[in-house]
C-alpha cells in the first residue's frame, strides 16, 4: 500500500521524498511531547507552542506519504491527549493531528515546501486549521463552548511558524544524505 502511494507521487511529481536516520521520527516525536509537558513549568509562555504539531507537519511535508503522515499525526495526537489528563478526552488532538498529518503529506507531495518562507506560510495555515478542528471537535462532539477565532490564535500561529522555520532547519540534519 505504501509502495503504491510512492508510485503515485513519482508519476505525478518530481519532488524528492526524504528519508531519515533510524529512530529520528520516533525520537523527535517523543522529545517534542516531553518538552511540551516539561518546559512550561519553568517558562509558562512556552505553552503557546505546539511542538508535537510542528513535528507532525515537518515529517508529513518531508515524507510526502499521506498514509504514514496521517498515522504519525494520529499517534502524536493520541499521546498528547493522554499526557493532557482526563479533562482532554483521547481523540481530541488525535483527530486534528491525523488530518494535519494527511494534509501536510498530501501538500508536500505536490508543492516544494523546502524554502523557509513556504515553511512559515504552511505552518501558520496548518496551525490555524489544526485549532479549527480542535474547536470543531469541542463544539460538535463534546458540546463545549469554544471561540472559533481569536487574536491570540493568530499570534500563536505566527510564533509557531517562526519556531517551525528554525526547528525544520535543525530537523533537516536528520535526513539521510
Amino acid at each position, binding site marked *: *500500500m505504501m509502495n*503504491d*502511494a510512492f*508510485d*503515485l507521487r513519482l508519476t505525478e511529481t518530481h519532488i524528492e521524498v526524504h528519508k531519515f536516520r533510524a529512530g529520528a521520527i520516533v525520537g523527535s516525536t*517523543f522529545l517534542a*511531547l*516531553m518538552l*511540551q*509537558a*516539561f518546559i*512550561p*513549568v*519553568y517558562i*509558562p509562555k512556552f*505553552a*503557546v507552542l*505546539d511542538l*508535537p504539531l510542528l513535528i507532525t507537519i515537518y515529517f508529513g511535508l518531508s515524507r510526502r506519504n*499521506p*498514509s504514514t503522515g*496521517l*498515522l504519525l499525526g*494520529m499517534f502524536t495526537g*493520541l*499521546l*498528547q*491527549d*493522554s*499526557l*493532557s*489528563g*482526563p*479533562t*482532554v*478526552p*483521547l*481523540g*481530541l*488532538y*488525535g*483527530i486534528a493531528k*491525523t*488530518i494535519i498529518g*494527511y494534509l501536510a503529506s*498530501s501538500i508536500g507531495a505536490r508543492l516544494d515546501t523546502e524554502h523557509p518562507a513556504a515553511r512559515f506560510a504552511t505552518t501558520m495555515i496548518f496551525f490555524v486549521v489544526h485549532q479549527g478542528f*480542535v474547536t470543531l*471537535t469541542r463544539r460538535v*462532539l*463534546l458540546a463545549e463552548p469554544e471561540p472559533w477565532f481569536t487574536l491570540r490564535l493568530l499570534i*500563536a500561529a505566527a510564533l509557531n511558524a517562526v519556531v517551525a522555520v528554525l526547528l525544520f532547519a535543525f530537523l533537516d540534519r536528520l535526513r539521510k544524505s
Partner: protein
Amino acid sequence: MAGIPSRHRSLILLAGVILLQVVLLAVQIKRDSQGRLLRVWTVGAVSPFQRAGAKGIGNIRGTWSHYFALQNTSRENEQLRSENDQLKLQVNQLQSKAAEADRLAALLNFRQAQHNVPMLAARVIGTSADTASRTIYLDHGERDGIRRNMGVITPDGVVGKVIESYRDTAQVLLLTDRESGVGAMLSDSRIQSPVGGTGDPLLSMKYIPTDETVNLGEHVITSGMDRIFPRDLPVGVVAEIKTGRPFQQVRVRPAANLQRLEEVIVLLTLHPLEQKKEPVAAPAEASKTVGGTAAVNP
C-alpha cells in the same frame, strides 16, 4: 484494498482512523471512561525524563546560587543589611495591623486544626501537553499515598485537586482549568459561591446575586462545602466585577501563583476537613508557621 485506486486508499485510511477516534471519544463520554491504560503508559514513559529534568534544573540553580552568585556576596551583604533595617521597621508597623494577619492566621489555624492531617511536599515536574487544559504533574504518586480528589495547596492558597494518581506521579487539575471548581465565599460578606476556572488566568465566581455588595480587592476564601478543602484557606482576590442578571460576573485573581508552580503541598486525606476556630495569632508567629507548612508535616 486490491481493487481500490491507490489515490483513494489513503483517503479511506483517513476516514477509518478519524471514525475510530470519534467512536473512542463517544465511548469516553458515554461511559465516562478516560482511557486510563494509554495514559498510564504514556505518563510512565515520560515522567522519568521529566523527573530527571526537574532534578537537573534544580541542581543547576543550586550550583548557580551557591557558587557563581556568591561572587557578589560582599556587596549584596551590605545592601541586604541596609534593607534589613528598613524591613524591621516595616515589620513593626505591620504587626500592629491585625487585618494584615488574616490570611496568615487562616493558614496557622489550618495547620493547628489539621495537625493530624498528613501533608506531603511535592515538586512539579510537568504540565499538560496541550494549551486547553490546566494540569500539572507531581513527582509523587500512589506509592506516597496520593489518591484522586486530594486537595493541593501552597502556603499562598489553593492550587487544585488530584485528578489522577499513577505509581510515581500524580496529575493535579489547577483551579484555572475550566472544569475545575472549589467551594468558596467572600471573606467580608461571607456570601458563598463556587469559584471555577475559565481557562484564563482569572477565576470566575458565578453565583453572587446582583443586589449583594462586592468590593474590588476583597478576599475570597474556601467555604469547606466541597469537602476537599477546609474553610478559610485563601482562594484569591476579587479583581473584576461586572453587573449582570441575576448574578454579577465576579472575576477572582488566584492567591497562589498558578502560572509558576514549582513546589506544592498535597493534603493526604480523603476525609472531609473541618476547621476549628482558633484565636487569631500574632503575625510574627503566623509567619513562622506558614513557612513551616511547606515542609512535610506529620
